[in-house]
């Protein structure tokens, strides 16, 4: 699978998907006009990747400063896929970064509480400390 690197813009996130190293990140803003059109191909690729995983150590960093409600649906989809991968015997670490924004922390907590298998932590990028959940 070809690695993916997309530069962020004012309203779309920077994306790095390294399928060889099993390291992934979403950064910045996400409220573009056609959210589904932007994410659908990524989700499809990620789904195929996750299904083929076997005993891998995966890390996914979410460092979003703002995302709209259409993007929230995508984020939850990614969480669900990652949790399934963890259930399937892979070591999955999800890290939710924020810079002190209360809504962002709350959203991370809410998405994180549905995870049953993946390891989840909320990271305060200002304080550089990890709050265990």
């Amino acid at each position, binding site marked *: 699978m070809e690695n993916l690197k997309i530069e962020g813009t*004012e*309203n779309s996130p920077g994306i790095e998907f390294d399928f060889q190293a099993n390291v992934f990140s979403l950064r910045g803003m996400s*409220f*573009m*006009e056609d*959210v*589904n059109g932007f994410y659908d191909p990524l989700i499809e690729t990620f789904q195929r990747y996750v299904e083929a995983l076997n005993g891998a150590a995966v890390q996914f960093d979410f460092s979003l400063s*703002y995302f*709209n*409600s*259409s993007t*929230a*649906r995508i984020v*939850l989809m990614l969480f669900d896929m990652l949790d399934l991968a963890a259930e399937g015997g892979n070591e999955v670490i999800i890290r939710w970064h924020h810079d*002190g*924004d*209360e*809504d*962002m922390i709350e959203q991370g907590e*809410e998405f994180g509480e*549905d995870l049953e298998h993946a390891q989840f932590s909320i990271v305060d990028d200002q304080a550089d400390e990890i709050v265990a959940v």
Partner: protein
Amino acid sequence: MADLDKIHEIQDALNNEQIIFCYAGYITEDVLLSVGNTIKQKLEVVQADRNASRAIFAIFVEEAQNVIRYSKAVLGDEADEEADVLRRGFLAVGKTDERYFVCCGNLIQRADVERLEGHLKHIKSLDADGLKALYKKTLRDDPPEGSKGAGVGFVDIARRAKGGFDYRFKDVDDTHAYFYLNAYA
């Protein structure tokens, strides 16, 4: 010719309603981006509370995208999915003594008023836990028919509007009504 006295009245009325920003016309993603950034800058200049600023920006984005997606005041062929269409609406940001508010308005079909009103009434009746549950459920469900996003925009607005929200429907003609939503961050 536009009557400047009339325009002054409108401008004055907006001031009296404590509106600090107002946009009426065709709303595009470009408008959303530049106005959204201007609002952020303004809030930084007056050193508004950071969490409130983020909420104001988030509510503004959801409201503007609602107009861009669903306003029935359309220039262009709405039925043609490939065609560029422009949708008209109203966006305003204001400040009362305690809170900022973000208001939007757009034309809708009168046939949709009942469904929309029921939806908003239900959202308004929920407490924080109820809103959270509805938010997650809606995100996991398939988007409702006719939705161009996740169908969860109003729930998101309600959750961020710590001072509550209000809505109004005004009949325009036999088939159309004007829909207003005002959220207090």
